[in-house]
């Protein structure tokens, strides 16, 4: 069984789940609300390795023994989970739940798109400067990134959230690119995904004033619908392998 973990309003996840089913993948969509309302949970680590069991309120049972892959669209604790936490220990409880999610997601077997990290449950949610530095290492042309004491840190993230004119998807080493982006970027994009430790990565490009494409940023939780059927094929290939 392949899990699609997502927030309730994640249209891209619902789209991907449907497309994977059409391609013969045994998919279970589990939303943040499902996880927040779940009952009994048991997560063990020890000499025998790590195991995970969770009983959902609708009777479904998630087990590390039956999960064969995850399309992971949870960047942080599900909103429904956060809404259930209150009181003076709210911040502590949220940290405890995040630590637990990070661990049980890490314990799952099969392709994890993407594996959880301390910096984001569906992959490392890197700062724009970190993406530019990685892009430079793998040979992707990028506009310079500048930061100083005078900048508002929050604004740096907001600038990175703008939609990109073109996206190249890396899915398990396969490239799904929009025709506008030159194929010379395929290999550097693969290297970027490797360097970022992400099996699924959306690499964003923009056309600079000289007409050449430049790296803008990357996302471990890209808009999957933008990749269309070729992206669904690539995802299915990963989970059916």
């Amino acid at each position, binding site marked *: 069984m392949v899990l699609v973990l997502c927030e309730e309003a994640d249209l891209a996840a619902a789209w991907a789940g449907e497309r994977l089913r059409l391609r013969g993948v045994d998919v279970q969509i589990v939303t943040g609300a499902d996880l927040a309302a779940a009952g009994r949970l048991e997560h*063990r680590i020890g000499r025998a390795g790590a195991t995970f069991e969770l009983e959902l309120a609708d009777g479904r049972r998630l087990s590390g023994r039956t999960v064969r892959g995850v399309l992971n669209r949870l960047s942080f604790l599900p909103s429904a989970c956060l809404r259930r936490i209150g009181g003076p220990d709210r911040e*502590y409880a949220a940290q405890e739940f995040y630590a637990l999610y990070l661990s049980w997601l890490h314990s799952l077997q099969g392709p994890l798109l993407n594996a959880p990290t301390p910096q984001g449950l569906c992959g490392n949610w890197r700062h724009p400067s970190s993406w530019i530095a990685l892009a430079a290492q793998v040979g992707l042309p990028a506009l310079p990134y500048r930061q100083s004491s005078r900048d508002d840190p929050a604004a740096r993230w907001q600038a990175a959230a703008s939609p990109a004119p073109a996206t190249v998807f890396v899915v398990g080493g396969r490239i799904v690119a929009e025709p506008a982006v030159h194929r010379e970027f395929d290999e550097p994009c693969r290297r970027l995904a490797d360097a970022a430790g992400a099996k699924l990565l959306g690499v964003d490009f923009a056309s600079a004033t000289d007409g050449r494409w430049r790296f803008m940023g990357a996302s471990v939780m890209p808009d999957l619908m933008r990749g269309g059927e070729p992206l669904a094929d690539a995802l299915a290939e990963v989970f059916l392998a």
Partner: protein
Amino acid sequence: MILLCGIPSESPLAMVAKELDALGADYRVLNQRKVAALDIAWQVDGSGIDGKLGLEGEAFLLTDIGAVYFRLMDDRILPELDGEPDGSPARRHARGFHDALLRWLEIAPGRIVNRSEPQGSNGSKPYQAQLIRQYGLQVPETLITNDPDAVLAFQREHGTLIYKSISGVRSIVHALREEDIERLDLIRWCPVQFQALVPGPDVRVHVIGRQVYATEIVSDILDYRYARRSGGSAELRATELPAETAEKCIALTHGLGLAFAGIDLKMTPDGEFYCFEVNPCPAFSFYEANTGQPIAHAVARYLADMD
């Protein structure tokens, strides 16, 4: 040049500064409490990273900084910002400076002790335990659950249990006692981490580069860090690890992306080692002060590229 960042009087930072003095190394201290007189500006592109750091009137090229040891406190609670309202110019400057500094430290070349990203594994003990296992060290049998019956079954299987936080939030390790079992239903609200008690003394291992310093702690208190507060005692003495265990500690430290780590082990009466945690920002001064182990010296040599 070497940069030390934090509060200069804080013991680990002060001890490393003293050792750098003894080595005759070229270093500067970035004193967080002088944040109003600090500034930084940098850029990264295909040709690398460059920029400038201003320290109380002196300016330095970032490309001249080859190593950094940082132990920064949360800038929001700096004493110098007491009474400053949210969003005041002083607070905005402090936040902007620290963010720009930390972002630079993440991508700067050179010896950074330690970058923030690899410190993240310490935010989840069971996640870190899974990483620890990959490097050949045993971890205690662990159960995280919201089911009281599962805890009782785990207790029947393993005997005495301890419980502690799942996250990196510091918690005092307690044994699960009868009065805790009476309130076990509370875990339905928030899962709790339980572990089989591993008998034997604690061993704190500091790894810096390839140097390993092991300290054995014998205490009559379960969590020796709180021995004094609990009316107990803790005796520390330098010890040697078996070569294989020391190598595993080095591999674990480097595998987690750390240059410097404080690894918490327990040695059972059978001579087996169990690993509980890797601390990526170890306050080593307590161990050095009690044993004389030259940990600050090793950190200074690592920073000065003399290891």
